[in-house]
């Protein structure tokens, strides 16, 4: 079941929470609404579910206009941020709730709940109460409860927000696997870009009530549409400089930027991700920037180096692959050279951060 959002506006008093949102979620896809707090991502999710109504615009499920329908009639599975499990009911009765209120025969309820308990790997915990479960287990009960009524789509509000790092990691890959088995159209809200990229087929980046970019994780990561997206998607080195004749001038230092061929100079901001900078002992080319290592932190498969360029008076973060780091035998205080492999330049006319 595809979701079609057309021209949705939402205001809370003076606050413009959503400003002309147009978005299509294709059938069977897993889509992440990604953005900082206050970007409107949760409001958008609640408007899709019917928990909140839009001031303007319409919501279509497939070709059916559901704008005026209540959450009860939209047949969506909504998973709340803090799960909202019925605390006085057992896990079994929590999952059975949707079928019970629809007066499903008991035999059907029994078999369906059993099936779902298996699906979310909670066999044998049916008689527990929510308070007796761990955070990850509660999350899975909430998911099973939402799936029990065979919803037309699954909507999850910060599904892993309240869990610790390890459980979160496990649940992410589990959700991805579950989605591959069930193929229910799923939308989830997150402020964690890593989470969005790891789980989703498609990422929608929101900012201040507007959509900044929609695309696959690769598209969004490799070709950020705006400086905001670039900045939001993780660590980035920022250079302020002047753009002229296919080159970016940063003081004495220059970077190639063939996309800009005009001869008249323009102020611009260049962004380079830490893994797109290379460290060498000797200058790799005339374009290399001299710097000194001021800090080294091992972070999993890479070594995170902080280097300082006296020429430009700035500090940079460089991710050095482990093998490369071993080869370089870096120490704090060493003199090195930095060369960018990939530069993204945004002209001030594009957007401001």
């Amino acid at each position, binding site marked *: 079941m595809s979701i079609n959002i057309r021209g949705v506006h939402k205001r809370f008093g003076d606050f413009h929470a959503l400003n002309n949102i147009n978005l299509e979620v294709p059938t069977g896809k897993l889509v992440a609404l990604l953005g900082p707090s206050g970007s409107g991502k949760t409001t958008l999710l609640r408007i899709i579910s019917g928990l909140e109504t839009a001031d303007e615009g319409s919501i279509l499920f497939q070709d059916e206009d559901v704008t005026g329908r209540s*959450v009860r009639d939209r047949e969506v599975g909504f998973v709340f941020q803090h799960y909202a499990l*019925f*605390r006085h009911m057992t896990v079994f009765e929590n999952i059975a709730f949707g079928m019970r*209120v*629809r007066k499903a025969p008991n035999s059907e309820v029994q078999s369906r709940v059993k099936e779902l308990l298996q699906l979310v790997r909670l066999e044998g915990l049916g008689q527990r109460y929510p308070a007796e479960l761990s955070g990850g287990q509660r999350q899975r009960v909430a998911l099973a409860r939402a799936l029990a009524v065979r919803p037309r789509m699954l909507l999850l509000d910060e599904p892993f927000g*309240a869990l610790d790092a390890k*459980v979160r990691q496990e649940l992410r890959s589990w959700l991805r696997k579950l989605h591959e088995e069930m193929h229910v159209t799923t939308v989830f809200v997150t402020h964690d870009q890593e989470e969005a990229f790891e789980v989703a087929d498609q990422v929608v980046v929101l900012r201040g009530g507007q959509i900044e970019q929609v695309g696959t994780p690769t598209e969004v990561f490799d070709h950020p549409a705006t400086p905001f997206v670039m900045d939001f998607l993780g660590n980035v080195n920022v250079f302020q400089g002047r753009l002229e004749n296919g080159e970016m001038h940063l003081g004495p230092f220059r970077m190639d930027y063939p996309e800009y061929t005009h001869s008249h100079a323009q102020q611009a901001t260049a962004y380079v991700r830490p893994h797109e900078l290379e460290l060498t002992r000797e200058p790799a080319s005339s374009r290399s920037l001299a710097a000194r290592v001021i800090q080294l932190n091992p972070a999993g498969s890479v070594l995170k180096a902080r280097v300082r360029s006296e020429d430009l008076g700035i500090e940079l973060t460089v991710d050095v692959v482990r093998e490369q780091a071993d080869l370089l035998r870096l120490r704090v205080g060493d003199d090195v050279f930095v060369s960018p492999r990939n530069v993204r330049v945004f002209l001030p006319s594009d957007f401001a951060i």
Partner: protein
Amino acid sequence: MHLDRRVRKSAGRMVANEPAWLRWLLIGLAFFIVGWLIVLPLVYVFWQALSGGLGLFWKNVWHDPDTRHAIWLTLTVAPLAVLLNTLFGLAAAWVITRFDFPGKPLLVTLLDLPFAVSPVVAGLCFMLLFGMQGWWGPLLRTWGIKVVFAWPGILLATMFVTLPFVARELIPLMQALGPDEELAAISLGANPWQMFWRVTLPNIRWGLLFGVIQCHARAIGEFGAVYVVSGHIAGETDTMPLRVEKLFQEYNNPGSFAVAAVLALIALGTLVLGKLVLKHLEPPEQPESEPLS
């Protein structure tokens, strides 16, 4: 083990580091005051009521038709007022905790008004509204409805005085619970009725019961407001507290104390019930702060 106990002991001493004599003086004072102000009068009531023997006590309570009527009146009007206030309290708590609307702070403040206004003043207001010289009194009289000097007046006065109890108990509880479970129920296909009976009510049941018990305790004992609106006609509009006062004024001490003892007994029963309910009333757990596995 030894060390552990010593540590705990010293921790206890740190909480109360006043000298022992001061501590015991304060504790003694507290017991002394409670004893003189609360326990002794209560014991005296029972002692006086039973001073003529159980037979006389029973005769005073049961064989005086006016007293019997007063007991009957109190035990019908008070529960009715409690029932109506429970329905009102549920509705008010629901509206206040689940919706935003202009004038909400005013409504919350007004809810507390009966605690602040003297019951006698409330009684007088009802007299002015529903009395024969009042605004609506003559109109109601033409329809054959008698409010003042009749049980509907007593009901109104009792409701006014006990109005805040249920709502006051439920508002913080429902605020702490939040709307998410209810929204989850609706999103799973429950209608509002199913949501209330299956999700809301089970979550608030102990708080509701405690509010009802408090409301009932207050309703049974109400004197001032009822005194004004009822006209305290013996055998007709006398409630138990009014009957106690009347018998006392008539120098019928055994009779007065007998009814007072029954009132006190009901109050003690309510108190015990309330304590039992209170045991179940824990702050609702916050799932997000639970330890994770």
